[in-house]
């Protein structure tokens, strides 16, 4: 077998932190052969990104690497930045998870694209510009001759990631390291970026190291896979083998981690909780001197929905589709027109004070478990804050009892209620956020991407918790998410939104098994649901 392009041997990465030395990567071996795609998978904190950051010499200043990383036989570990620059940007390049911030906002993309060309390729400025236009064309940016003079803020996230890819490919590298390059993007954009990478690899013949937590992507694109857990490689081999016969229980857990199961349907005679008709939210984008209203954005454009007790309506769509705005509009947290009825009351004529007594029945859980909990309150105080408003008469002791009860309900140790949010993990914080809603015994909960910031295995637990709570209390859910796997596991009815409108609605089964609209089909195809693939694979093996 030919010598690998990139050979990682017994690599250790450590960080000096306030709590002592953190051993992030614990002696791992990874080989990347010419022209192949290697995936490194693992959950957050597994060390998968830090491994490749140390290959590129990009560790934070409190971190250092030991061991060996060889590029075609040349040792990279311990090289000074200047010496490393002979490899970085020309032989080894990297694209990152954050397309929105990875380009310098102060420079035109053409100038940024020219930098690696003039530095490593020795091109003149004029030649570099010509080549930059070619590169933009290569990554399929429309009208590259004009777009080359754009600033990053004038481009979408997907376009910025394309520009990043163009920069990384500028000097025809041997190895492209892609660190979760599509995690921050919408699924359909993700699909296009992945397709582009696969196509470019075929044409340019480089190796790709794909760092991801998304097994659907791994399965489609990687020749070989390394599974990492807590700084160690627990399993490696051909991707197909790993999926067919995972040896390590952690790998098995990752494969199974996609939320499974279906929700039991709500009883047919369940009472209607919330009904919304023809909801519209319009934003006027102020433009020009003297405030001429130039443009009107219909964020939600005539959407109707109804939820009965014990029922879940899933709202799916990409960023900007208006799904979150719809969620806020039906809770009267966003100025809207149309009709919203809660049980037997019309909510639209009510003002803030009029809404207040109803608020306890209508709760909201947010996406960001880090930003939505006050860092200066204990988790117990956070959970019971709503009681101060809605049940002001109960004693402090009673509130504390209710907090303990709510903690138990979301399966957190009640003894932890005196801890502060930063002492909890992301999944635990989301449980606190759910407890904060549940303590008021709501009838409807709007869940706005509650699982999107969490690892798959944690997601699965939260989905199960939400299902159990719904069953126990007959809750009505409006579940907003871009993540089709989670929506499928939780919803009775699903609405697919695009540009403020509902393009398709139906039962979970109808939407996933017999989608009518192209857009829905694109979304499902782009989500790479592993469960679906498994089912297909099984179906095929049965057929054959």
């Amino acid at each position, binding site marked *: 077998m030919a010598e690998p392009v990139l050979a990682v041997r017994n690599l250790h990465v450590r960080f000096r932190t306030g709590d002592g030395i953190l051993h992030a990567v614990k002696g791992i071996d990874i080989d990347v052969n010419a022209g192949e795609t290697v995936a490194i998978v693992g959950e957050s904190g597994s060390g998968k990104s830090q491994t490749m950051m140390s290959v590129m010499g990009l560790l934070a200043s409190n971190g250092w690497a030991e061991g060996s990383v060889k590029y075609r036989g040349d040792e990279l570990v311990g090289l000074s930045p200047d010496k490393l620059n002979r490899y970085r940007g020309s032989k080894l390049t990297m694209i990152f998870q954050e397309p929105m911030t990875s380009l*310098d906002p102060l420079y035109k993309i053409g100038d940024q694209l020219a930098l690696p060309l003039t530095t490593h390729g020795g091109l003149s400025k004029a030649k570099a510009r010509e080549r930059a236009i070619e590169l933009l064309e290569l990554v399929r940016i429309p009208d590259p001759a004009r777009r080359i003079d754009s600033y990053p803020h004038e481009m979408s996230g997907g376009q910025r990631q394309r520009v990043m890819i163009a920069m990384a490919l500028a000097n025809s590298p041997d190895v492209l390291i892609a660190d979760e390059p599509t995690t921050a993007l919408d699924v359909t954009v993700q699909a296009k970026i992945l397709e582009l990478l696969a196509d470019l690899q075929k044409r340019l013949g480089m190796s790709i190291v794909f760092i991801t937590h998304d097994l659907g992507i791994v399965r489609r694109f990687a020749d070989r896979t390394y599974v990492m857990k807590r700084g160690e490689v627990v399993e490696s081999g051909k991707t197909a083998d790993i999926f067919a016969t995972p040896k390590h229980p952690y790998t098995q857990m990752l494969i199974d981690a996609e939320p499974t199961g279906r929700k039991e349907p709500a009883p047919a005679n369940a009472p209607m909780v919330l009904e919304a008709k023809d909801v519209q939210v319009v934003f006027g984008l102020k433009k020009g001197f003297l405030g001429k209203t130039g443009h009107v954005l219909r964020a939600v454009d005539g959407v109707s929905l109804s939820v009965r007790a014990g029922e879940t309506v899933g709202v799916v769509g990409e960023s900007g589709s208006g799904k979150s705005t719809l969620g806020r509009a039906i809770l009267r947290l966003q100025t809207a027109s149309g009709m919203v009825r809660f049980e037997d009351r019309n909510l639209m004529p009510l003002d803030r004070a009029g809404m207040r007594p109803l608020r306890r029945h209508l709760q909201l859980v947010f996406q960001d478990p880090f930003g939505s909990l006050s860092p200066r309150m204990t988790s117990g105080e956070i959970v019971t804050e709503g009681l101060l408003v809605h049940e002001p008469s109960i004693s402090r002791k009673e509130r504390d009892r209710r907090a303990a009860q709510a903690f138990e309900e979301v399966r957190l140790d009640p003894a932890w209620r005196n801890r502060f949010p930063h002492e909890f993990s992301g999944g635990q914080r989301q449980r606190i956020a759910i407890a904060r809603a549940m303590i008021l015994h709501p009838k409807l909960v709007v869940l706005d991407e509650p699982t999107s910031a969490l690892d798959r295995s944690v997601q699965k637990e939260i989905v199960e918790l939400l299902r159990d709570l719904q069953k126990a209390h007959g809750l009505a859910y409006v579940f907003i998410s871009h993540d089709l796997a989670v929506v499928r596991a939780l919803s009775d009815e699903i609405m697919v939104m695009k540009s403020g409108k509902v393009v398709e609605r139906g039962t979970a089964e109808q939407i996933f098994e017999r989608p009518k609209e192209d857009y829905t089909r694109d979304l499902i195809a782009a989500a790479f649901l592993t469960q679906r693939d498994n089912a297909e694979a099984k179906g095929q093996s049965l057929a054959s």
Partner: protein
Amino acid sequence: MGWLVRTGHLFLFFAVLGNGGVTLLSYILRRLLSAIPTLFVIITIAFFLIRLAPGGPFDLERPLEAKVMENLNRIYKLDRPLIEQFWLYLSSVLHGDFGPSFYLRDFSVAELFARGLPVSMTLGGLALSLAVLVGGTLGAIAALRQNSGIDYLVTGLGALGLTIPNFVVAPVFQIVFGLALAWLPIAGWNNGSPPNLVLPVLVLALPQIAVVSRMTRAAMIENLRSNHIRTLRSLGLPSLTIIKHALRGAALPVVSYLGPAAAALLTGSVVVETIFGLPGVGRYFVEGALNRDYTLVMGTVVVVAVFVLIFNLVVDILYAIIDPRIRYD
């Protein structure tokens, strides 16, 4: 005529800039127009505030004869109703006349500023340039060598520069460099000869160097940690390119500090001008107020207000030049 030619050049300059230049020009015009009501409000408030202070310009320790007082008041129109005085003042300001100084009786306010402002602006301008050059460089070096000896030295000196008041630094400098070493003149303007400028400019610049270096350091550190700098590193670009990009990003907060700081520096410093015996305008703030020299106080207020408005505009334009995300509207 010369004025016309210069405006013509300005127009040409904006025309060359193209469409963006036209937006910039209309933006500047709009901002200058909006400065007029602001100035009016400032003048009004200052006019009535100084009149609220007890006493008047001609109240001396030994009171003047009643008849003399009456004559003076009549000559300077201080016997008219207040609202009429305000109106008279406004209309004369509109004609560019800031009136006579009540206390320094042989001079008009305009003459005082015509003499003093160049002195103060020279000192302030030099101090500001020094602050940007030295402070910016020190801050950038400290950020690039974070937590090294140089970093601690810069941060330490910055703290010193901020905490030691200029009325302590100035005499110490005079004693050390003027008397003990006898390298530089102790005081005096001497028509702005360079040796006379060194000490006052240094004293003025030191606290600014401290502030600028601290701000540059903090902004650079934040920038060096940002994702787009990581991108440049991943592309194997030389450190000079990385520093250039980080500096441009770090310039934004420093520029917004420098606007008001420039307005303050260029309009003179009472302490430095008094200690070094310099004929700037800084002392007029104090002298005008203490002597109830109404016109001089009003003159200083207008001058400072104009400087602040101009430098805020300059800051906003610089901001838009540095950061393309900011648009002129």
